[in-house]
């Protein structure tokens, strides 16, 4: 499959993520959208890594593997982030009985 398809798909995913973050007020959904953006990037990394490997395998047997390594890093970080983020959301719900981020503007005052 041409690389273009992957690029278009990940752009679409990324944009959905951004729009979600910008428009939704529910913290959990915003959270999911952030995950979506991360995975769009993951997809792109894997696609480019594969393409690079196919081209350069003759010269360098490990060409392109670093892109895939990055994906693992991102996954690990995302998992850690999810655990922290969800904990915050739980605490938030306990305190204000809502997960609407627009209520969370107390720092202003």
């Amino acid at each position, binding site marked *: 499959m041409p690389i273009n398809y992957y690029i278009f798909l990940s752009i679409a995913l990324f944009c959905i993520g951004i729009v979600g973050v910008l428009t939704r007020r529910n913290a959990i959904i915003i959270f999911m959208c952030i995950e979506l953006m991360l995975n769009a990037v993951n997809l792109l990394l894997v696609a480019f890594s594969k393409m690079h490997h196919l081209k350069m395998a003759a010269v360098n047997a490990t060409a392109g593997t670093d892109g895939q390594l990055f994906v693992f890093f991102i996954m690990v970080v995302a998992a850690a982030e999810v655990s922290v983020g969800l904990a915050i959301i739980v605490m938030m719900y306990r305190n204000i009985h809502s997960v609407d981020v627009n209520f969370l*503007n107390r*720092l202003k005052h």
Partner: protein
Amino acid sequence: MKLLLLLIVLFPLLGFLVNGLGRNILGKRLIAWNACLWILGSFVLSVIAFMTVREEGAQVERYFDFIKVGKLTIPFAFQVDQLSIIFLLIITGVGFLIHVYSTSYMKDENASHYGRYFSFLNLFVFSMLILVMGANYVIMFIGWEGVGLCSYLLIGYWFKNNEYNKAANKAFIMNRIGDLAFLIALFWLIAKTDTVSFNELFSPGGLKNLTSTDFTVITLLLFVGATGKSAQIPLYTWLPDAMAGPTPVSALIHAATMVTAGIYMIARSNILYSQSAITMNIVAYVGLATALLAATIALKQNDIKKVLAYSTVSQLGFMFLALGTGAYAAAVFHVMTHAFFKALLFLGSGSVIHAMGGEQDIRNMGGLRKKLPTTYFTFLIGCIAIAGIPPLSGFFSKDAILLSAYGHEKFGMVLYGIALFTAMLTAFYMFRLLFITFTGKFRGTAEQEHHLHESPPAMTIPLVILAVLSVIGGFVGIPELFMHGGDKITAFLTPVISGTGQHNVSRSTEYILMGLSTGLMIVMIIFAWFKFRNYQRTEAVGLGKVLENKWYVDELYEKIIVNPLDKVGSFFNSFFERSVVDGLVNGVGKLVHYGSRQLRLLQSGQVGSYILLMVLSMVVIFVLQFFLKK
């Protein structure tokens, strides 16, 4: 030699540091010993250096690189040659005597001020030594500035009197004007030749890059510097006002050493000056004009120190006349003899003021001869010496100057005539001062009369030594006329000074001129005797009043320079400072205040809006990058 030269300079500095830092701890006796001994040490080392120079010629010792920029290297180096060794001996020798004198003159001060006084005095000697020993113009400039600073500190020594502070400011500011010109000349020289060392500049070929315009401008600027330090027209008015300082300070700074810095500098740069006939003429004319002007003012002054101050200005004018007519050696010779008799006269006047309990107005003195015999006798010698009666020192040096004026190729007769007239005035006002002060009846209060006493030995001994020097000091420069090989000082200075003493005056003319000047001086002295031996107080009228008010030069400066500057200053204060500068500063403050008030609105606390801004700015950055790449 390297260590020796360094020690000559370091001794006074050490004295300054010890006295300056320890003035609250050391007693007065210790301070006095400390101050005097360092200077004495310097003097002894200078004598040793003199012996070396006489046998081996000039010595240049390089210590380290002071400034190193590009092609220009300015070493920190000392040079002791025939010219500077004479100044070294004068500074440390006369300086030592004045230190000794001061120990007694200033004894009524409390210990802390006493220490301050002597530390300044030592610092002054230190600066002056740097000035004359520097092997290039930059080191010389350090000393040049140093003596300016010290004169400020010492003139304003009694800082509680506001008038004295003003006099100190005046001296400092006038000097600054000259210093600026000196600096510009220095930069000009560096730009053209890439060096400031005397050795390199004055060696053959050292000045090949300079055009005749360069020579004229540089020498003129240097001369402006010299007029500031050596009190010539138009920057002379600070020196008479500088009499605000204690009398020994006047003797040290304003008679014997500091004011000769300009003479030294020009004598040192004689090779530059010889290249520019225009400058030479200007120097001669300015010197002569100053000599005449100051002498006329001195005729009518009633403050004992003011008379001496104007006489100093006048004598300095003579020295510049000598420089301008190419007789550098005669100028240096006159510096030396002048240092002797002017220090003597100033210290003598200090002794009189001391006896009178601070009174300086000669109209309130009179008949002091019997009460102050030593002071009278030494003062008399000083007067004879400055008047130029043979065989005292002033005669020989003044005669050399008059002769060089006569030898001027264009206006020899005119220059000689005016110089002779000025010399006659000198004899007249000096003996006026002497007769009014020491003869006739005492005109002060009864209390002062009761208080009259001869000064203690610490003051009279320096007077006697200086009197002896004033008598014999001239014998190093007896004209060829009287003794073959007599003019030792010119011969001694020959390696440093180009083309001296070649006046084309025949022997018979020389005899006639000498006889003429001596005769006229004696006539003037006798005239002064008849006029002032029984002085009665009279009000000056007509020209006398103008002279008493110093030709109204101070008032003129006040009108044409100080007042306009004041006006400009107050305009800038009221308009520029208030509206432009303050407006700018306050405007910046207001702008920041207003801007932050507006920017604060962005901080809404809504997470969504922050993220939106983040995304938008990222998009903008990407777009910009996309376009700017091409």
